[in-house]
C-alpha cells in the first residue's frame, strides 16, 4: 500500500512538472511578447517592464526562475490587473468556486445515486423511462444551453430565482443545478446499470430469501456494491466541475476563479492564464491521487498495482 501511494504521488509530481513545462513552452510560442499590444513605449520603458516581469534573461533561466517561484508558492504577476499578484487573484476567487463546485458535486452524487437506484428499482415502469429520458437529455445538452435556458425560464419569465452573483442562498440554486446537471445524468445512468447488475447477484437472492426488507435490501446490500463505479467517476467528475465552472461562472456572473480564467483568456493575460492553469492542474492531479487511493481503500477487491 505504502509503495502504491508513493508511486502514485511520484507520477503526480512528474505530471505536474510536465504540465508546467508544456505551459511555459506554449506561452513562449506566442509571437511578439507580452507588451506588444500596448501603445508604443520607449526602449527604456520596454527594458524596465521586461526587467520587472523577469523577461530580460534567457528562456531556460526564465523557466528556472518561474519554477523556483512556484516551489515557494509564488505564481507570478498579472499583466492586466496592475499591481495584483496571481496568488492574490487566485486565492481571493478560488473559495467561491470551490464552494459552488463542492455543492454541485455533492448534489450530483446524491441525486444521481438516488435517481439511478430508483430507476433500477422501477425497471421498465414509466418512472424508470422518465428518469432515463431526462438523464439521456442531460448528457446531450451542453451546459451553457442548460444555463441560459434555466435563466430564461426561472429568472426572466417566472422571476422566481435571481440570476446574477452569489449573494444569498437563493442565488446558488440555478448555478448549482446547471453545474450538477451533466454529472447527475451521467451518474444516474451509471448507477442504474450497476444497480441492475447488483440486484441480479446471488447474495441479493439470499438476502431476500432470509426475509430482508426491500428497503434494507436496496440500500444496505445492493447499494454498497453498486456504488463502486460511481467512485471511479470521481476523477472525471472533478475535471468536469472545473471546466463547467468556467461556463457557469461566466453566464451567472459569479466572482470565482472560473470567470477570472475566462477573462484572462479573452484579455490575453498570458501570465495569469499560465498561473491559473498550473494551479488548477495541480489541484486536479492531486485530487485524482486522493480519489485513486480512497478507491482502493473502499473496495479491497481491487488489486494494488
Amino acid at each position, binding site marked *: 500500500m505504502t509503495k502504491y501511494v508513493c508511486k502514485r504521488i511520484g507520477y503526480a509530481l512528474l505530471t505536474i512538472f510536465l504540465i508546467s513545462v508544456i505551459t511555459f513552452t506554449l506561452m513562449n510560442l506566442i509571437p511578439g511578447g507580452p507588451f506588444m499590444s500596448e501603445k508604443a513605449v520607449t526602449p527604456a520603458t520596454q527594458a524596465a517592464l521586461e526587467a520587472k516581469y523577469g523577461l530580460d534573461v534567457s528562456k531556460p533561466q526564465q523557466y528556472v526562475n518561474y519554477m523556483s517561484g512556484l516551489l515557494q508558492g509564488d505564481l507570478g504577476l498579472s499583466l492586466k490587473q496592475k499591481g495584483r499578484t496571481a496568488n492574490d487573484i487566485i486565492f481571493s476567487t478560488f473559495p467561491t468556486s470551490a464552494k459552488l463546485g463542492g455543492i454541485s458535486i455533492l448534489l450530483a452524487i446524491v441525486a444521481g445515486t438516488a435517481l439511478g437506484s430508483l430507476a433500477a428499482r422501477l425497471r421498465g415502469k414509466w418512472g424508470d423511462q422518465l428518469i432515463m429520458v431526462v438523464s439521456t437529455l442531460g448528457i446531450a445538452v451542453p451546459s451553457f444551453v442548460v444555463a441560459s435556458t434555466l435563466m430564461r425560464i426561472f429568472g426572466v419569465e417566472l422571476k422566481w430565482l435571481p440570476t446574477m452573483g452569489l449573494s444569498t442562498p437563493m442565488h446558488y440554486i440555478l448555478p448549482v443545478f446547471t453545474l450538477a446537471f451533466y454529472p447527475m445524468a451521467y451518474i444516474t445512468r451509471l448507477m442504474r446499470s450497476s444497480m441492475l447488475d447488483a440486484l441480479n447477484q446471488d447474495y441479493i437472492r439470499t438476502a431476500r430469501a432470509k426475509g430482508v426488507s426491500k428497503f434494507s435490501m436496496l440500500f444496505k446490500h445492493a447499494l454498497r456494491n453498486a456504488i463502486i463505479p460511481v467512485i471511479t467517476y470521481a476523477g472525471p467528475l472533478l475535471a468536469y466541475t472545473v471546466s463547467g465552472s468556467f461556463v457557469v461562472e461566466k453566464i451567472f456572473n459569479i466572482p470565482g476563479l472560473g470567470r477570472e480564467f*475566462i477573462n484572462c483568456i479573452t484579455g490575453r493575460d498570458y501570465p495569469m492564464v499560465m498561473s491559473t492553469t498550473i494551479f488548477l492542474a495541480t489541484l486536479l492531479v492531486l485530487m485524482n491521487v486522493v480519489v485513486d487511493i480512497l478507491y482502493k481503500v473502499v473496495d479491497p477487491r481491487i488489486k494494488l498495482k
Partner: protein
Amino acid sequence: MEDMKLKKNPLSFHLDADDFLPASEDEKQQLDIMRESTTFWKDALKRFSKNKVAMVAFVVIILVMILAFIVPNFYPYDYDQMVRGSENLWPMQYSQAEQARIDAGEDVFPHIFGTDKLGRDLGIRVLTGARVSLLVGLVASALVLLIGSIYGSVAGYFGGKVDLIMMRIVDIIYSVPDILIIILLQVTLKAPLQALFDSSSIFDGLNRVGVGLISIFITFSLLYWVSMARIVRGQIMTLKEQEFVTAARALGASNGRIIRKHLLPNCIGTLIVTTTLQIPSAIFTEAFLSFLGLGVAAPMASLGSLAADAINSIASYPYRLFVPAVAISIIILAFNLFGDGLRDAFDPKMKK
C-alpha cells in the same frame, strides 16, 4: 482373438467395404444446410438492425449529414452573406424590401429560422455550423483512431520494456487535465500556426480550412488518443497469445504484417465503437471552446459558436439559441445512441 482381427492395421491398404455403402437418409440430412453460415459483419448488421433506437439514431445521422454537407450547396443564402435591411428578423418573417419584392411577384426564399443582427440567415448558418461541428467530430475521431490504434498496438504487441515505457507516457498524459491543456493550446497555437500557414504556399489548402479548425484538430489529436491507445493495447495483449498469431509468425510474417493483417482486424468492433463514441465528445468540447470564444473564427460558425453568440440576446431573440442548441443536442444524442447500438451489435457480451 476376435478383437485383434477387427483392429485394422493403420498401414494396410485394405479397403473397408462398409465405407462404400450408399448414405442413409439420416446421414444425408446432416448435409442439408439448416441456416446459412453468417459472417462477422452480417451478424453485427443483423443485431444492429433489430435495435430500433440505434436504427433511428442512424437515420438521424444520415439526415443530418445530408443537411450539413449537401443542402448548403443549393441554399439560396450564404452563411456569411449579410442581407441589408433584413437584420434581426424572426423566423419566417420578411423585411420590408423582401416584402415589396414578394408583392411584386418575385419568389423570395423565407428565412426559416430568421436572421441575426448582421442580417445573416440563421438557417444556413445552422447548417454550416452543423457541418463544422460534424467535421470536427469526424476528423478528430479519425485522428484519434489513427494515433491511438498504432500506439496501442505497438505497445501491446511488443510488450516488455517497450510497453512499460510507452504506457507510462500514456499514464502521464492521461492524468493531465485535458480541458485545461486544450484551452491553453487553443489560446497559444493560433498565432504561430497562422504565421506558419502564411509563410509558404504549401499550406494553402490548410489555410482554407482555417487556423481555428486546424488547431482544434491538433489539440484533440494530441490529447484524446490515450484512452484509445489503452483500449487497443488491452485487446492486442489478449489476441497476440492466440494460435493464429503463432501460426502467422511460424509462416514468417513480419511484426508489422501481423499487427496490420491479423491483430487490428480482430479488434475492429472495439475500434469502430470507441471511434463512434469519440465523435460526440469532440463535438461537445468544440462547443465548449466556442462558448469561451476559442473555437472557429468568425464569420465561420459552428453550432457551439452560434449558441454562444445567441446567449447575449437570449431575452429578445430566444430562437437564436434554441435552434443551434436543439441541433447540437440532436447530433450528440444521435451519435451516443448510435455508438451504444454499435457496441451491442459488435459485442453482445458488453451489453448492459
